[in-house]
């Protein structure tokens, strides 16, 4: 075991997969000698050579486009897009190409590709450095979308993503990057894509979240009245959604709150609450409650903590749901 931050756990997963499989190559802006702007690829260019940890031109569309080519030709590219807000130029390549090749070639050409993207707010960053676009990509067929919240999950899930035969967007909550350390197995292991994790077991209400919001939910949980028994689920994979774990919990509790940083309208909370009413309608004691970002542009950092769901607002949502 090693005591690692999220950054270090991801770095270790990348190093182990590069060691294990020569086809794995990293590419992106500043991922080389500089180790990426968050130092996630620190030391990898020095260890594996700059030909396997390639600094690229400043061109997000290009980064994903050539990664698709690499993947077609038998490599296992792991491109980095520097910030969530800079996914824009790469959207065409991700949604119109990476996501579609398997289907449009009837399986003849496949794209094993893992796109790493730091995501989310709360770190006092400039504009376009704090967005949560996971629902956009979950809505796009042909992509898997993963967002771990802990170092241990990140290492296992990234290993699975790199070995996955299809394109995966791997969102890394930057608010958690160096927030804490956790014991992480040094040996390689995988955590399956598509499996949620029950962080805390409880009977009265289910709270579903992912990414950095897991920690705000834990804070909210600690502030609840002692007699409230809360079940907290960390989705870990956004798409495919682990509906079985969600349904099993809500069948037990009858109440559910979904929490995410992204704007609430057409956010993942809408999809999850729809699945709950499809699977657990007769178990529900209250409408499924969503606590998300407002339907506004992510504000600059002076107001970002008023925008992001914090423990207080999540706690309100939980109490509102319990009171129904």
């Amino acid at each position, binding site marked *: 075991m090693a005591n690692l931050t999220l950054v270090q756990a991801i770095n270790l997963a990348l190093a182990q997969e590069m060691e294990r499989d020569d086809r794995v190559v990293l590419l992106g*802006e*500043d991922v*080389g*000698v*500089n*180790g990426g*702007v968050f130092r996630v690829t620190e030391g990898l260019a020095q260890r594996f050579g700059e030909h396997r940890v390639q*600094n*690229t*031109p*400043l*061109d*997000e*569309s*290009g980064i994903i486009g050539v990664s698709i080519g690499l993947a077609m030709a038998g490599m296992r590219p792991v491109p980095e897009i520097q910030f969530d*807000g*800079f996914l*824009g*130029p790469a959207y065409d390549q991700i949604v119109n190409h990476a996501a579609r090749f398997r289907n449009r070639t009837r399986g003849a050409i496949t794209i094993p590709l893992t796109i790493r993207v730091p995501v989310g707010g709360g770190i*006092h*960053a*400039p*504009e*376009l*450095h704090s967005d949560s676009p996971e629902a956009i990509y979950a809505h796009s067929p042909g992509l898997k979308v993963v967002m771990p919240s802990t170092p241990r999950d990140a290492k296992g899930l990234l290993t699975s993503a790199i070995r996955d035969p299809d394109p995966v967007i791997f969102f890394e909550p930057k608010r958690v990057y160096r927030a804490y350390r956790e014991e992480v197995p040094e040996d390689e292991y995988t955590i399956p894509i598509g499996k949620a994790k029950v962080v805390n077991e409880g009977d009265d209400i289910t709270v579903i979240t992912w990414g950095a919001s897991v920690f705000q939910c834990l804070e909210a949980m600690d502030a609840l009245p002692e007699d409230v028994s809360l079940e907290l689920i960390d989705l870990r994979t956004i798409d495919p959604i682990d509906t079985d774990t969600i349904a099993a919990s809500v069948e037990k509790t009858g109440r559910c*709150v*979904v929490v995410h940083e992204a704007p*609430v*309208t057409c956010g993942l*909370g809408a999809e999850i609450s729809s699945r709950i009413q499809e699977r657990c309608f007769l178990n529900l*004691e*209250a*409408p499924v*409650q*969503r*606590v*998300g970002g*407002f*339907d*506004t*542009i992510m*504000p*600059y*950092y*002076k*107001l*970002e903590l*008023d*925008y992001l769901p914090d423990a207080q*607002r*999540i706690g*309100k*949502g939980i109490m*509102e*749901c319990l*009171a*129904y």
Partner: protein
Amino acid sequence: MPKTTVYTASIENLQILDEDGVLDESLAMEDGRPILTDEQVMYLYEQMWIGRHLDEVAFKLQRSGRMGTYPQNKGQEANAAAAGLAMKKGSDYIVPAYRENIAMHMHGLPYHYILLHWMGDERGNQIPEGALLTPLSVPIGTHMLHATGIAWAFKLRKEPDRCAITFFGDGATSEGDFHGAMNFASTLSVPVIFYCQNNQWAISVPREQQMNSPTVAQKALSYEIPAIQVDGNDVFAVYKAVRDARRHCVRNGGPYFIEGVTYRLGDHTTADDARRYRSDEEVSVWAGKDPLIRTRKYLVNREAWNDERQFELENRAKKIVHEIVAAAEGIEAPRVSDIFSHMFAELDNDLRRQRDTMRTSSIGQDPSQIGLRSQPQNA
């Protein structure tokens, strides 16, 4: 049939004021006078000095937790200052990236707005009435299309003496939108100046990893846009290039491309540490080409500058920057409801409800539904 040459290309480099502050008279003189008067050079020197001092104070504000991430302009000031002077205030449009503080200020943006932006406050982008510029652009290489569109509007409305200038870095030339902007500008033939501040580094990626071409300027030739490379640390060369480019744009109606060869003396931003990827030797070579040093030498040689003037400027700069910081820090806190205030000309019902209940409800549930079950069911 012999092969024929159907296209040849070359790029000229212009330097007028060298690193020692010595002026090339043959290039600098027009009608018996230098293209910049001593008063103009002094003005540019003072603007660069104040800009540099603000830059250094901004760095310290970030380090002491009083401001967020900040990208220093240090070393590149001559580009923004001389280009800003060559453009016509109140009629031309400035479309910056984020290392053109001086040009933005010269064209009407109060300096404390720039600090406000990096202090995480959108009010720093609230361009004052009459100032013709767009806010600092954080996404790389996307805003040159906007400048092209602005120039197109000038053309459509037949406004003859107007021109747009857009600034961007060497890294931005890798983005597809950069090429789109040049192609639109060229095919539509609109009055826009593309000014590349080639500062040699895109965060940690050096120019030679960014592109294999020896100049940035040559990229414009493939769009049939006239292009020149200038010493971007030379106020005379930058001023002449932009002034001539503007004349070309206004007279001929088409775009122009300028590559200012310069250097980012600081880190990419305060979140970066350039010592990780570039050598001290390289930095010190470029420190010797500092635009402030050579401009001052020139003025001293002309006997237009002396130690007393320098002392007065430094004190004035301190006072000005102190007031800028006080204005940025003294602004009242934004209202939390401002998150909603500027989403649309008129807020829809959903947004109004979210705004009105943001302090009292969790947002997900219609407030009228909260506690419904606990109310008497059969009343």
